[in-house]
């Protein structure tokens, strides 16, 4: 791997996004507006936003980065840029790491924006540590990026790539504790939910837990990120049959 080529790839991806203000707006403004809408809708239920709001900060980056990465990577495969890159001295690691850094940075900006507005304008009174929320959001963004890279190999069209969201993301959304607390799920679903990456993201935001608990949740997320990045890199083929 080459740090220079990785960072060149990161810069190229960020330049692409700079020329695409709609996607940038979707990445940054939509999650902020949705959390604001949630805060507003829960105005008459004291404490409700303080409970649900932070969890969304761990969910949004995963969903948004999954969608964006799977579509953009699929485009690289279908328009021929990936094949061209693989005739050049660019490794799979450079390519995957370039994406991870670019979208990780975006996830961080997204989470900072949502966090700052939540703690100020939206009136969030969360007992957790704000910096931990940012790190969880960064991990969630990297999770979305890594899964998007890996699953884009299975899709043949951008329409199919988008269809992976209900298949891959929605079950996690239902089980992560956002709708029903994980402890109240049927025993089989509880076991499954406890090892899902989105559940780990939500748990890592839950306040007043022990340090080993948080370390365990971050370990789950990092294991998923690394595994999905390796799988994602493995799906990139220099030679096709």
């Amino acid at each position, binding site marked *: 791997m080459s740090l220079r080529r990785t960072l*060149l790839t990161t810069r190229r991806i960020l330049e692409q996004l700079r*020329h695409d203000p709609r996607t940038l707006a979707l990445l940054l403004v939509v999650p902020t507006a949705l959390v604001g809408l949630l805060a507003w809708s829960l105005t008459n239920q004291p404490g409700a936003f303080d409970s649900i709001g932070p969890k969304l900060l761990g969910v949004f980056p995963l969903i948004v980065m999954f969608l964006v990465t799977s579509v953009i990577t699929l485009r690289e495969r279908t328009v021929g840029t990936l094949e*061209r890159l693989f*005739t*050049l*001295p660019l490794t799979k690691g450079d390519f995957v790491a370039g994406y991870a850094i670019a979208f990780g940075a975006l996830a961080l900006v997204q989470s900072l924006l949502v966090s700052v507005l939540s703690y100020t304008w939206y009136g969030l009174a969360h007992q957790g540590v704000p910096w931990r929320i940012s790190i969880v959001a960064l991990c969630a963004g990297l999770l979305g990026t890594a899964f998007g890279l890996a699953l884009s190999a299975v899709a043949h069209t951008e329409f199919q790539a988008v269809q992976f969201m209900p298949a891959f993301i929605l079950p996690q959304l239902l089980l992560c504790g956002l709708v029903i607390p994980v402890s109240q799920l049927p025993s089989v679903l509880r076991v499954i939910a406890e090892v899902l990456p989105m559940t780990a993201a939500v748990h890592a935001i839950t306040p007043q837990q022990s340090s080993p608990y948080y370390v365990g949740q971050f370990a789950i997320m990092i294991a998923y990120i690394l595994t999905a990045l390796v799988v994602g890199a493995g799906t990139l083929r220099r030679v096709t049959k």
Partner: protein
Amino acid sequence: MDNSDQPTLDVSKLRVVRNRNEILKSVTFRALPGELIGLLGPSGSGKSTLMRSLLGVQAITGGSVRIMESDAGSPSLRGRLGYMAQTSAVYLDLTVEENIRYFAGVLVQAPSEVARVMDVVALTPFSRRLVSSLSGGERARVSLGVALLGSPPVLILDEPTVGLDPILRRDLWRTFNDLAGAGATVIVSSHVMGEAARCARLLLLREGTLLFDGTPASLLDASGAPGYDEAFERLIEGDR
């Protein structure tokens, strides 16, 4: 040391089978530095598969493909082959300059190379335009510009003139001639037989079989046909 008689491309009994279809059937040819070779044949004849085999991105079933004394696809060849695919294979949501600068960076080329290449493909006035806003011909030139980065000794250009107007096509062929004149081995594929006259040497491919390998003049002589379309038809009939 003069390497002009050392083949840059050495393809021997190349076979490619994909989804149980034999796409290339024992194709053999060599190419020298400075040759401008037209790879001609109808759509589906195996031209793109042959070109992808030269690049090393197509798995081969049999035979061998050697490029500058290395097996096709070897890490040592990455960046030494200029490639232009049928699709433009550049980023539509980047400007012309950003595209060329990115690929130049991957190839570790100096910034001056970006300006040189944009000048060669006459895209300097469009440098700040998004590729998505360019015409098909202009996009093809961006793709060619990327292929020319670093002046690679071998250029593999897959149907680079398809859909272009006659003036632009003429200008591109002049560029290909100049590159071959400078010592590069240039392979240009086309399904338009009329482009045969622009090449120094022709490879005619049909259904994965190399029907002819020689100069345009020898093709006309051998077939006794008045034009290249007729010559190709006679070759096919003779092959049946």
